[in-house]
Structures are given as C-alpha cells and as structure tokens.
C-alpha cells in the first residue's frame, strides 16, 4: 500500500516538472488520521505562483487515493532553501538539462563554477541572474555553447 507521504511526495512541481515536491523539499509534513490527511508545504519564494497549483494537485491526488478530507497547510519557518533538494532531485534536474544548485555556505563573493548539464564542462558563464521562473538563472556553456538553466542557490 502506498502511504499518504508517498502519494503527496510524488506530486510534480508545476514549474520544474522533472522533479517532485518531495525531491525539492517543499513537502514538510504529512499526518494521517482515519480518512483525513493534513499536508504541510512550504513556499520556495514569497511570491511563488505555483503554490495554488501544488495545493490543488495534492488535494486531487490524495482524494483519488481515498482520503475523504484533505487539509493543506503552509509553513514559512524555517525558510525553504535549495539545500533541502535531495540528491535524487539534483540528479533528476541535471538529467532534465537544468544545473542543480550548489551547497550554500557563508557569503560567496566569487561564485563557484556551475557545471554544464549537457557536456559537464565547468567553463560556463552566468548569462542572466534571472530566468523563466523565480528559482532559476540562465547560464551558457563555453565548451558546447549550449545555454542552460541553473537552479540558483537560495
């Protein structure tokens, strides 16, 4: 039998559909009581427009799995960080051509090189600090010349 956690964790991120909300660390807690389930999620960015979509997807998937009552809660603290993206999530991102974030440390004055998800070269440059969604930046590889997205350290 599939647990409520597994069902909830398998919901795909609407803006990064290569990974699930479990992979991203957006899913914080799942509590079952009889036929009711309470799911706690955390936003990546304050203005993340995907939260309503994620909540609706969770509701749909858990209802389909037989839960009669589904409560979705938000938790802001501690604030989400890309450090919560699982190794599995990082692997899936790279496979989808999106360079995963590095570890956040102290203040990084000289950004660490981001490896090209296509050819592996570390000879890449930041093309734009922002990209199609709040969580990504745009890079280009100097080796294979391909542009690619990078989930920025947050």
């Amino acid at each position, binding site marked *: 039998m599939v647990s409520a956690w597994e069902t909830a964790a398998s919901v795909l991120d609407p803006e990064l*559909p290569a990974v699930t909300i479990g992979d991203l660390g957006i899913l914080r807690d799942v509590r079952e009581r009889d036929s009711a389930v309470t799911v706690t999620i955390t936003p990546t*960015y304050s*203005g993340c427009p995907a939260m*309503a979509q994620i909540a*609706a997807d969770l509701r749909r998937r858990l209802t389909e799995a037989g839960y009669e009552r589904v409560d979705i*809660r938000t938790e*802001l603290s501690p604030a989400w960080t890309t450090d919560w993206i699982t190794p599995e999530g990082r692997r899936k991102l790279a496979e989808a051509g999106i360079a995963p974030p590095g570890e956040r440390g102290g203040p990084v004055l000289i950004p660490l090189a981001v490896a090209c998800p296509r050819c592996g070269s570390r000879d890449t440059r930041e093309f734009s*600090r*922002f990209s199609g969604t709040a969580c990504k930046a745009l890079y280009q590889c100097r080796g294979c010349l391909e542009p690619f997205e990078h989930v920025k350290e947050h």
Partner: protein
Amino acid sequence: MTDNESEQSEFDAYLSLADVSEEDHRWAFGTGFGDPLAGIDVAVPAGVDPAELTATCLALGDDALIYSHRLQQWVTRAPELEEETALANIALDLLGQARLLLTRAAQAEGGNRDEDRLAFFRDEREFRNVRLVERADADFAELAARLLVFSAWRLAVMRGLTADRDPVLAAIAAKAVTELTYHRDYAAAWVIRLGDGTDYSHARAQAALDTLWPVAAELGLAGDADAYLDAVFAEATLRRPDTPPLAPVAGKTGRDGSHTEAMGYILAELQSVARANPEATW
C-alpha cells in the same frame, strides 16, 4: 493510458483546472489565490502590541506593493529581455512579500479586512509606504539606483525583523532576506556597470542618484546598508549625493500617509479593476 500519457497529464498545469472543486477557484495557472498564511498559527502572541505589529506589517507591505507595481511597469519596456525577466521576478518576490505582510497586518488589526481589502480599498492617505517607491523611473539608470537603495535598506530592516517577537513576522522576514540579497546584488552590478562605464553612462547614473536622494532620507540609512551603498558608490566611481531631503508636509512623510503626486496615479491604476468589480476574486 500508457506511462507516457500518464506522465504527460501530470505535467499539464491546466488539466486539473477542469476538476470542479468547491475549494479550487483557479481559472488559470497562478490564479485562485487563497490565504497565503493558511494553517499557520496566526494568534498575536502575548507581549506583542497588536497596533504596533499592524503598523510595521502595513508599512513594509505597502513599500513592497507599491514598488512591485512600479517594477511591473518596466515589463515590455526594459532594454533587454534578460533585464525584463529579472525585473518581473523581483516584482514577483516583492508582491509575495506584500501579500504575506498585508495578510499579517489584517490579522493583527483584528477586523474583517484581508490583503485584498488593504491593497485595493484604502485611499492614498491610508497608505504607509515610503516616498522613495512612488516615482516612476525616468530611465534605466534611475531604476538601477532606486532598486539598489531600496533593496539594501529593506534587507537591513528584514534582517532585524528575523528576531521579532512575532514569529509570523520573523518568518516572513527570514524568507525576504535571501530574496532581497539577490535583488540588491543585481542592482549593484548595474549601478557599477553604469557608473564605471562611459562618461555618458556615468553622468546618467550620477543624475539618477541625485534625483532619488531627497526621498532616500526618509529611510534613515545607517549601519550595514549605508556601508554597502558607500562601497558600491566607490566601485561605481559615483559621488554620494548631498542633495537635501524632501521636506515633510505639515511634519508628515510617506510613513504618516503624506505622499508625492505620483502616488495618486499609481493607486488609480492599481485599484481600478478591483474597485470596478468589488466582488471579484483573483
């Protein structure tokens, strides 16, 4: 259904819109906004003055709301697509902060208002934003300079609030810190590039800084934020302006509800749809 089709359906952000549910009010991706603090313990803790908490959240929420609107006005007008994307993302972060802060303000004041009532149905004198965020940028240099000053200052304010006695405000501030650091560094890179660029870009950057400086006085820049700005100005070969502060009107500034002429025009645009359709949801 094949695996591929099943996978495909999960990708489709529009598919679930077809599901009719009483709790799902979305009509497109990114709509159907619910309470951004749903499920969080929103009781104002003992020892926290609700009036003071309301005032803090309202002031910082209004700064973010009005400035986000100004940044959104750059969309379709930015010099390059990458900058437009950057500004839209920054505006989105600030709008998210505004939603959380106005929602908290509404809870703390304890009435029946919510974030939408506060954003769309207050009049000019009830807004508590600083005057720095009101003026439309005349050019890209002014945009970069204003964004730098605003982000450096707001970052310092939010850092201070991460230790606030109200845990909800502290959590909102903690999320904002990472976002604002990124905004500030983006703006700093542009101010340095323009200031330390050609004679022409330097002159435009200095003029932009001189233009906004009179309304920057209201921020009470000090400490880390001030030191950061000085470091950027030095790197950009820009002179820290000595233009005098914009005088208060009858002792009142933006935080007291006394705004510049630009404010009325922003609110007219920002509020017109909600006021024409007072029952609308988003």
